[in-house]
């Protein structure tokens, strides 16, 4: 898809967020509360034990992880019911009579959404948290760049996941239960609540087979310095492989879904 068009739609979606004046204040408070709860829980947990390092995390490291994974998660906010709503009200018909890729239009819409959340929520939450909590991030330009790349790839993975679940609407129309399942899987298996290192042993092989850890966990470990620069590069390689796998699933689902699609209302 032509980049100019992509950016246009990013900006339309961004502006839409601005016009409907998503309640920024509530969003910030809500995000900050999460950060506060998680960091407090970790502090309480760590104070119960004599050892200071658990699963490779010092208290500072785990607090940093909790703050940063939340920051990434908030930046990755996207409306996962877009496709569902377009199928529900039939407006998907209008999009399909345009010479544009449905996947990329969807991605552009998500990006606009996420940019808004990054600016309006992530930024203030990170700044406040750095002052309030014991957060320590290694300052290396290359590391930061690798983190950004890894985030972008991780973001595309999240968008693909939402695309795939959204396409279920072509078969079922009503997909709310799928969205709930997805939300649970995504938040937990991506390391959004607890880093993968803390998962029970029996879960770890399963997690390795799933793409979720490449969405939040790995980009965050790059940022906070748990992954070496060399490891960061292989993380990004693995993420790219997942992009290919998910891309194949997306296009397969799209091909099959097209035949199932019906348009609601005239």
């Amino acid at each position, binding site marked *: 898809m032509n980049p*100019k068009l992509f950016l246009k739609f990013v900006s339309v979606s961004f502006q839409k967020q601005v016009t409907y004046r998503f309640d920024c204040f509530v969003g910030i408070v809500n995000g900050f509360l999460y950060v506060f709860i998680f960091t407090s829980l970790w502090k309480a947990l760590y104070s119960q034990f004599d050892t200071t390092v658990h699963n490779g995390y010092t208290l500072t490291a785990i607090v940093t992880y909790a703050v940063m994974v939340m920051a990434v998660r908030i930046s990755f906010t996207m409306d996962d019911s877009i496709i569902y709503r377009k199928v529900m009200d039939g407006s998907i018909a209008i999009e399909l009579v345009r*010479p544009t890729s449905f996947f990329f239009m969807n991605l552009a819409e998500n990006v606009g959404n996420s940019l808004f959340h990054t600016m309006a929520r992530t930024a203030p939450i990170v700044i406040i948290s750095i002052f309030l909590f014991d957060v320590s991030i290694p300052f290396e330009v290359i590391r930061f760049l690798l983190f950004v790349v890894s985030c972008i790839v991780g973001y595309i993975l999240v968008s693909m996941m939402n695309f795939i679940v959204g396409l279920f609407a072509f078969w079922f129309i009503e997909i*709310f239960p799928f969205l709930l399942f997805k939300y649970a899987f995504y938040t937990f298996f991506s390391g959004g609540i607890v880093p993968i290192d803390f998962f029970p042993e029996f879960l770890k092989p399963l997690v390795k087979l799933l793409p979720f850890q490449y969405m939040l966990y790995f980009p965050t470990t790059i940022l906070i310095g748990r992954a070496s620069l060399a490891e960061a590069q292989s993380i990004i390689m693995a993420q790219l492989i997942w992009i290919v796998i998910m891309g194949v699933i997306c296009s397969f689902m799209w091909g099959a879904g097209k035949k199932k699609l019906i348009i609601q209302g005239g």
Partner: protein
Amino acid sequence: MQQNNIAIKVKGLSKDFDISESGKGFSGKLKALFRRKRKIITAVDGIDFEIKHGEFVGYVGENGAGKSTTIKMLTGILVPTSGSAEVNGIIPYKERKKNAAKIGVVFGQRTQLWWDLPVRESFDLLRVIFRVSQSDFNSQMKKLDQVLDLNSLMGMPVRKLSLGQRMRCDIAASLVHNPPVLFLDEPTIGLDVLAKESIRNFLAEINREEGTTIILTTHDMNDIEHLCKRLIILEDGKIVYDGETELLKQKFVHEKVLEVEFHDDGNVIHGIPGVTVIREQGCKKWLTFDNDNYGIGEVIGTIASRYKIKDISVNEPSVESIIRNIYNNRVTLATPSEESPTK
């Protein structure tokens, strides 16, 4: 090449919908998915037609006849259950994007403009979507503005437009890229007489001047009579008439209507051979007579000799009344067409 002259080619095109009643809620839907007994309706049932470039075709039929479903298949939204279609030589449901670049579509009941944006920005987005150069865009918009009077609407957010204003914008929006083929699904729905007329004039003009092929779906038979040389009538997903609009009258109507105003009411008309009264209103009566077996002079003569007449006129049946008869099955549709496939 003759092939190049064909804008749309449809062969045995069918679309089934699964309307099995699914239970309430999610589990009901899941069950329905695995149930063997399905309720299927055939919305479009093996239709064939060819439309040449530059034609203006009316596509009509009762509610639920399958008009919109056909248009959705030709625009690449729906994938047919069987059969094939080509638009500008492209198979719409296989090459949706390629097809979309060469067609314009208006769905009367939904807008293709961005609800939250001012009209101007919607057009600008469409310009980028359809990769229209700024200069082509400017000249096209100028042309569209002249007929559809868009300038005054440009700054308004789409959600604040009236239905008629929105429809003008939507029609213009479908033409930003000056497509060779235009699909209009009820573009005059809910419009007042004047708005309808201006849109009609505009459509006639682009068909004449630009040679745009237009397929128009409507329930307003005036639209058809004014615009469409050719008429395709659909019934239960099957084509029951495909031919010139004018010819429809000759083929299916063997009756003329006489509108007679008598000097006093209470006249009981009977016993005139071939004549039946279809409507009465005070001194006015509408009579039909069998056009094939009785001459018009003969009938008028007989009436005039028996009753005192104030005024009399002969009405050609409207396309509307003919189509109404077809819908009501008052006219048999053993299509006298030569092309009908022999079994």
